[in-house]
């Protein structure tokens, strides 16, 4: 069976400008930040990003890589409003297709099931109906005659997600209380790239955790990247919590300064720069 392990840069080499890219996690929680950092080191841009947005969206927006964002919110959780995303929106140039959290889930589901749409009650009567030209309604053919939103499939060219453990074949495991929607992102995408805290033998996956923790099936996974601390600075419980201090610094530092200090070289350089920063603030 195929060994799907690759580096973050190899993942990025398979992506291209203009793609529709889904990013897993939720807000500032278990985001595939190492993959996002690799993306930022590349020249890839003009992206349509589909995400429950957090600092992944903030960083890509600050670097001018997003043409259109499809989302229900962008937040850093402990910092309610994502400052770089806000700035990008308020200066213009970042197009937004705003949909409800539940519509988002239905859109991924429709894509995963190869359906053109799924009916949802969310959205009717609100201004999300005017958030893009593509939202249409569908009327129930049964006696109730209810008019619902026909949420179009959110088909993705590629998905990026981060989990706690994976094997070399692409079976992915989450160990915290919350799977988010990472399985749906992978199933809705033509190619799915999974970073993980640690690659382990397949047998190791179920030694300490139940089989229901096996969130990602290898048939929906294209590549596996070992990226310890790869969700930093978002939370990745139980392996680690959010790095609140660093996130605050990210949120209050001008983007060019942050990018120059942390995003110039590879992931090892990022980790070293974070350690230097920590030593500095603790002094």
């Amino acid at each position, binding site marked *: 069976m195929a060994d799907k392990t690759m580096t973050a840069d190899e993942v990025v080499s398979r992506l291209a400008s203009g793609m529709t890219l889904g990013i897993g996690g939720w807000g500032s929680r278990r985001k595939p930040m190492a993959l996002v950092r690799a993306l930022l080191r590349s020249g890839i841009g003009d992206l349509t990003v589909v995400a429950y*947005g957090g600092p992944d969206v903030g960083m890509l927006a600050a670097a001018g890589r997003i043409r259109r964002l499809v989302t229900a919110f962008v937040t850093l959780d402990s910092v309610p409003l994502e400052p770089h995303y806000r700035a990008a929106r308020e200066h213009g140039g970042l197009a937004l297709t705003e949909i409800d*959290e539940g519509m988002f889930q239905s859109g991924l589901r429709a894509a995963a099931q190869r359906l053109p749409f799924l009916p949802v009650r969310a959205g009717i009567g609100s201004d999300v109906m005017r958030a893009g030209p593509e939202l249409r309604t569908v009327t129930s053919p049964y006696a109730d005659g209810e008019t619902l939103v026909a949420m179009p499939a959110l088909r993705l060219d590629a998905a990026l997600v981060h989990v706690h453990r994976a094997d070399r074949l692409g079976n992915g495991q989450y160990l915290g209380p919350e799977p988010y929607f990472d399985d749906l992102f992978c199933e809705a995408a033509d190619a799915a790239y999974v970073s993980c805290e640690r690659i382990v033998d397949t047998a190791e996956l179920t030694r300490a955790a139940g089989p229901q923790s096996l969130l990602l099936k290898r048939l929906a996974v294209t590549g596996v990247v070992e990226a310890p601390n790869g969700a930093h600075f978002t939370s990745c419980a139980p392996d680690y919590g959010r790095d609140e201090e660093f996130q605050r610094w990210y949120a209050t530092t001008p983007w060019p300064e942050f990018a120059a200090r942390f995003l110039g070289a590879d992931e090892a350089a990022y980790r070293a720069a974070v350690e230097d920063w920590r030593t500095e603030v603790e002094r």
Partner: protein
Amino acid sequence: MSATRAEYCVIACAEAWRDAGEVLASPMGLIPSLGARLARLTFAPDLLLTDGEALLVRPDGTPEGWLPYRQHLELVAGGRRHVMMGASQLDRYGNQNISRIGDRERPRRQLLGVRGAPLNTLNNPVSYWVPRHSRRVFVERVDMVCGVGYDRAAGLGAAARFHRIARVVTDLAVLDFATPDHSMRLVSVHPGASVEQVREATGFELAVPDGVPYTREPGAAELRLIREVLDPVGARTREVPQGAGG
């Protein structure tokens, strides 16, 4: 010992879940959270509450269920939930905005985004919490309709059969939509605030019945729960300072 303004707000929020039965209480923000937990410890013992993440927890913190976001969104569609959300803008028919101020292409202020407001308002009872009652929040027209109001719901037919906005609680007052045209009505003012003050801080014509009562007093047991069990460090006073308003 008399109650503080923040404590009247907690009581007023708690009342949103009276007679809600065995449903999920989803309070967003500190004062609504204190209200929901107070309701469960007193007059609404069957309520379900989360730890703010993926677990349903008993009052002592014991997990009693699992509710990841994927199931939470489905539970909303099933309707067994009463949410209290925030509102950056709210109009006289209860249309709510938490997304942006200004133009869609280039907003003056980009806020959170619609989050689950469209889903919530068409599927389960919704209330709102506004910690600063002002004309900036209570506006003639919201810049983007995230939560659906009564005027919008009126034309939706069967899709709006579960639409209900139960109440709006602010640092000054309690409001609802129990008027013939479902426009906002003043229900009570918190002791220390006045009807005139509420009118002054509202950017549209509010329905004000004769003889608006004061928000009810907390009982001694309720005050003890708020002060000793639910919020011993007094975080509520940071959200609503004593004698707040205007």
